[in-house]
């Protein structure tokens, strides 16, 4: 389980941007790319290498008026998945 004090960041060589042609957010990485779904987009928008995981969870729980432990589980799972794929550093 990831500690909430960790500060997630995009891995070296990874970019997160909005693609005007497809009207979708895309995560671009060395020789691969991901098209995150809407909840993942909201999480990735908060991954800036400065906010801690705790702060990201607080922010989402407040904005989406959802139980904090549910949000915490979803955020940690999503970031762990992208970390295993090399797109996020935890």
């Amino acid at each position, binding site marked *: 389980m990831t500690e909430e004090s960790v500060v997630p960041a995009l891995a070296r060589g990874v*970019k997160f941007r909005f693609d005007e042609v*497809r009207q979708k957010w*895309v995560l*671009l990485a*060395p*020789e691969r*790319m991901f098209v995150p779904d809407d909840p993942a987009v909201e999480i990735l928008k908060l991954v800036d290498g400065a906010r801690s995981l705790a702060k990201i969870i607080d922010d989402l729980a407040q904005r989406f008026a959802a139980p904090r432990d549910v949000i915490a589980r979803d955020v940690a799972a999503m970031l762990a998945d992208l970390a295993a794929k*090399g797109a996020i550093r935890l």
Partner: protein
Amino acid sequence: MTPPAPPPAPPLGLLAELTHRCPLQCPYCSNPLQLEGASTELDTSAWRRVIDEAAELGVLQIHFSGGEPTARRDLVELVRHAAGRQLYSNLITSGVLLDARLMAALAEAGLDHVQLSFQDVETAGAERIGGLPGAQAKKLAAAALIRESGLALTLNFVVHRQNAEHLPAMIALGEELGAQRIEIAHVQYYGWGLVNRAALLPSRAQLESTTAEVEAARKRFSGRMVIDYVVPDYYAERPKACMGGWGRRFMNITPSGKVLPCHAAETLAGVEFPSVRTASLAEIWRAAPAFELFRGTGWMAEPCRSCERREIDWGGCRCQALALTGDAANADPACALSPHHSVMLAAIEEASGGAPDFVYRRIGADPKAPRRASVEA
């Protein structure tokens, strides 16, 4: 009557082969046997226009490749132009021409990632395979420069029967050089690779041991280093989804401006490929006959036509179907359901003898008449 097909989704990636010039002579080079000379290369303004058209069409990643792309004097300008259009840029290089000044200029221009090739971990073997004495030290120096620049680094190793045993050392070198990613790619047997197949095709035991080592290393480096792995399909039961399907995701532009659905497509004799000199990338992607030729599933014959995997592997590789069965519209013979599957077994048998000398990749070489290597009739 069938309704007209919807327009294809935009391509994701563009491989820009800026030049076929290269100081190395790897006998499995993915460039075509008939290499294009410097005098036919697109100029800077044509490439700038191509980059604009690619961005407008929806391309997300551009791979500057070759030959050796750093042999082009306008590489930095093209990288800067791609960055200005928000394209994710990747430099695919041998590293032997990369110095501190060029590295700094590329990083400043907005390059996102460098893929650096190694032919082996041991100097003598690597330089015998690449055909360039002194290359290994330059590559190691290039890796350090890339690392210091702060850019993401991938090490690329092409593996085959003459270096497969060094796989653990390749992965260790990636860790030592601070790579974010390692690509272990078995030779793909088209073009030069097919000419040199009897010297390169690994045994089944070699393939199985490299696969096991890659899987173990992936676990060991999870979250720290990505390891991508490309297998040869001679031992497979089902073909690979070549390019993710013809004209579905990817375009390749040759140094002279020809636009191909994959980098080996020029082996398909009789197909006329469009050029960026006479049409826009959007027109080519949406309607060029060469891109329509094997797009989707309508072109398929049996066993592909009724196969439940037809939209998973898209019939495999058209170039391999032509090279090994004589008809590009046949199922890829890598598929066990292909009536031609036995040609793969025959190639394995042929490669189990002594390894013939390499036919090196050279502009003006005559690979159609190799002295000792064997080619398909």
